[in-house]
């Protein structure tokens, strides 16, 4: 515990500078950046390229191929070449259907309800494919920076839900990167701009990535970035602009049926056409290169603009809603992120909407990775205190299923994180000993329309009359935007806490297993994790007992009983500071057993109270009537 690194507030000595990276894990391309000599910049590969195409090819038994080389194999092995896997992160097979159709993948049901891709080298999950991309970027950073990476900040679309965030974090861990933090992409972009300017004001970040659209409104105030609101559309991105060109081209070619490989090739042609149209007024698509005997077609910029207009409008609607959520009328600056924001129509539409010419000083392709690198540098402890602090929000409301399939929102969207919110529930049947808890995310009122994150059952509720149990369900969202839910029956002091993981993510055991097969230090991690879990168990028990003793200790326990309990609690507290996991577990169990009698007495007391309460209420009712 004493291997103290620099305390927050103390600047480490120069030779203690730690290697930290920011990674933009994109739908189309991924980048890694780092702060060197006080400047943040992207890191290039041996051929001088900074963008790594987010493509993984699984056609060879010798192992996966990542990046440009994989892209070259795409037409030849369409089903074995995974592109845009980010669209599938944290998704079940049902959600993935539409995207898969467009991408010509063969899908399988992966573990824990997650989708997998069928390749000639076996079923591959989106998490595994993303891990390959992250591993390549991690290796690039190790080579360039000349040392082990101590911490990485990985960016995610602000609009990613809990399952998608968890999947991203899992991929980074699997890719061998120590994750400091998940950072929202628009927030990263604002950091990249804000740190230089040291200005005060309100910034809008318009981020049209390959597969997602995000809009965020932030306030910068003396080095504190406060995200006021965020919104967007996870199913709308630059790829959709390309797809619009593909559809148009197919109409021109009289709607021929395409093979998967041809479709991929046409998509690449469309992307190039889109890029050309940012500077040219007319572009020619040599369709004959993809479809035999097809004539080349020309696309004018106005035509292109006409068919992407509905998509641009959709982004502006999200902007309007986000401004309202932020309770802001005007912004001081607009930042553009994502290669597709080079499309002139989009620049004009954004300028028109926000009544500000957008900032474009930093390359929109690099800005997110640069911001992430700055944040990584701060988090790893390389910068003096007071430099910068990010206060982010949760993008989608979190809630619970209640009677009749309705959602009760516990944490509304745009709540600043970290956040802890609790809600009390009760039993509705006499003697009910279990309560089903279903956690959902989204803005809709019906459970059926929301994303299901997890389900669990709180068991072991002591039998009581209906309405007497007080079950406190606590939502805690950490600074990464990741959720933990615990449920506890409060009246009795009987501990029944449950922690859930989103049902689409990998379980800790699964991750540990995968790590063991690929890394030698997995065993250490597992021990450390187990120790941390045991500490948590011990702490929860101690906290629960402290509360119970404060409430009923004097009334229900004799002096001697109370003292005995306190002694055991102290022993456990001491053990929790040590490193002996086995001892910690034994003492936790011992204290648990020792406190059972106390718990039973509290149960008796609460049942008496509950019964008394019922009769009083009934009396009250009679008087009113």
């Amino acid at each position, binding site marked *: 515990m004493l291997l103290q690194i620099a305390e927050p507030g103390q600047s480490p000595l120069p030779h203690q500078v730690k290697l930290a990276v920011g990674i933009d894990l994109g739908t189309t391309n991924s980048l890694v950046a780092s702060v060197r000599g006080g400047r943040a910049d992207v890191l290039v590969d041996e051929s001088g390229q900074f963008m790594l195409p987010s493509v993984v090819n699984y056609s060879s038994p010798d192992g996966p191929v990542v990046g440009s080389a994989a892209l070259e194999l795409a037409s030849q092995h369409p089903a074995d070449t995974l592109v845009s896997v980010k669209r599938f992160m944290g998704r079940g097979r049902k959600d993935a259907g539409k995207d898969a159709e467009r991408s010509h993948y063969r899908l399988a049901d992966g573990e824990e309800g997650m989708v997998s891709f069928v390749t000639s080298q076996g079923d591959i999950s989106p998490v595994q494919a993303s891990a390959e991309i992250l591993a390549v970027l991690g290796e690039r950073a190790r080579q360039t920076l000349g040392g082990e990476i101590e911490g990485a900040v990985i960016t995610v679309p602000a609009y990613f839900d809990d399952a998608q965030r968890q999947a991203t974090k899992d991929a980074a861990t699997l890719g061998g990167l120590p994750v400091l*933090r998940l950072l929202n992409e628009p927030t990263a972009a604002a950091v990249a701009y804000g740190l230089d300017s040291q200005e005060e004001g309100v910034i809008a970040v318009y981020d049209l990535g390959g597969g997602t659209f995000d809009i965020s409104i932030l306030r910068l105030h*003396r080095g504190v970035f406060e995200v006021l609101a965020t919104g967007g559309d996870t199913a709308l991105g630059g790829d959709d602009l390309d797809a619009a060109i593909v559809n148009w081209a197919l109409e021109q070619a009289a709607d021929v049926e395409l093979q998967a490989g041809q479709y991929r090739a046409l998509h690449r042609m469309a992307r190039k056409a889109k890029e050309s149209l940012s500077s040219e007024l007319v572009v020619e698509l040599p369709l004959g290169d993809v479809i035999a005997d097809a004539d080349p077609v020309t696309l004018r910029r106005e035509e292109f603009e006409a068919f992407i207009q509905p998509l641009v409008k959709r982004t502006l609607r999200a902007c309007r809603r986000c401004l309202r959520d932020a309770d802001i009328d005007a912004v001081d600056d607009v930042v553009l992120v994502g290669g597709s924001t080079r499309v002139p129509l989009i620049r004009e539409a954004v300028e028109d909407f926000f009544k500000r010419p957008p900032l474009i000083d930093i390359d929109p392709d690099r800005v997110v990775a640069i911001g992430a690198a700055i944040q990584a540098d701060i988090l790893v402890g390389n910068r003096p205190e007071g430099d910068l602090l990010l206060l982010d929000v949760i993008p989608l409301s979190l809630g619970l299923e209640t009677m009749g399939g309705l959602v009760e929102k516990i944490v509304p969207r745009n709540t600043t994180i970290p956040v802890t919110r609790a809600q009390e529930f009760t039993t509705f049947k006499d003697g009910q000993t279990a309560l089903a808890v279903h956690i959902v995310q989204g803005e809709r009122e019906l459970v059926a329309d929301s994303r299901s994150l997890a389900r669990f059952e709180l068991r072991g509720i002591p039998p009581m009359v209906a309405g007497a149990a007080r079950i406190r369900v606590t939502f805690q969202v950490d600074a990464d935007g990741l959720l933990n839910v615990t449920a506890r029956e409060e009246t009795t002091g009987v501990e029944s806490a449950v922690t859930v993981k989103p049902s689409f993510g990998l379980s800790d055991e699964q991750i540990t297993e995968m790590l063991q097969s690929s890394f030698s230090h997995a065993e250490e991690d597992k021990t450390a994790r187990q120790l941390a879990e045991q500490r948590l168990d011990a702490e929860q028990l101690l906290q629960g007992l402290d509360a119970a003793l404060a409430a009923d200790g004097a009334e229900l326990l004799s002096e001697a009983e109370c003292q005995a309990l306190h002694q055991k609690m102290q022993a456990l507290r001491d053990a929790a500071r040590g490193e002996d996991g086995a001892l910690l577990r034994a003492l936790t169990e011992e204290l648990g057993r020792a406190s059972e009698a106390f718990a039973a007495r509290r149960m008796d007391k609460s049942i008496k109270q509950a019964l008394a309460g019922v009769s009083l209420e009934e009396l009250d009712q009679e008087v009113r009537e």
Partner: protein
Amino acid sequence: MSSPDFSQNYFQLFELPVQFAIDTQLLGNRYRQLQRELHPDRYASAAEHEKRVAVQYSAFVNEAYSALRSPLKRALYLLELKGMSQQEISGQQVDGGFLIEQMELREKLESMHDLVDPDTVLDHLVAEISSDIKIHQAEFEAAYNQSDLTAAASACVKMQYLEKILQEAEQIESELMDS
């Protein structure tokens, strides 16, 4: 880690007077100051339990800030500090005239989908509801300052009604946007 005293009420935490009128700029400054010290990012390389404590402190400060920043939440919190429970507050009677107005507002909202130009009508309606809310805020403040908790609670209930309708209006607006 310097820790805030969790037994303080939210006003004391931000060193502000316990009253409805609030200096939002000062509130914002004190909030950011506390987060600068307590946010888990400040403890990114600290021990696990310190990080967990930071998450809890930071969440507490966020909770306090959100309770004071919103006028409705602030009003409810002031009544809570005076010892009124949620049930007591929501049990307050509101006059029949107000309820009839609410029904009319709701009817207008429900017919919104059939209009030719719903956006303009909706904008007007949102402006109307927002100005009504301001009136009841003033009503709350006056009653609270005269220690008339019953009248203050009744103003709170009206604010709650109107906030709920405002949310519904926004829901309808986003449905219109998406259609």
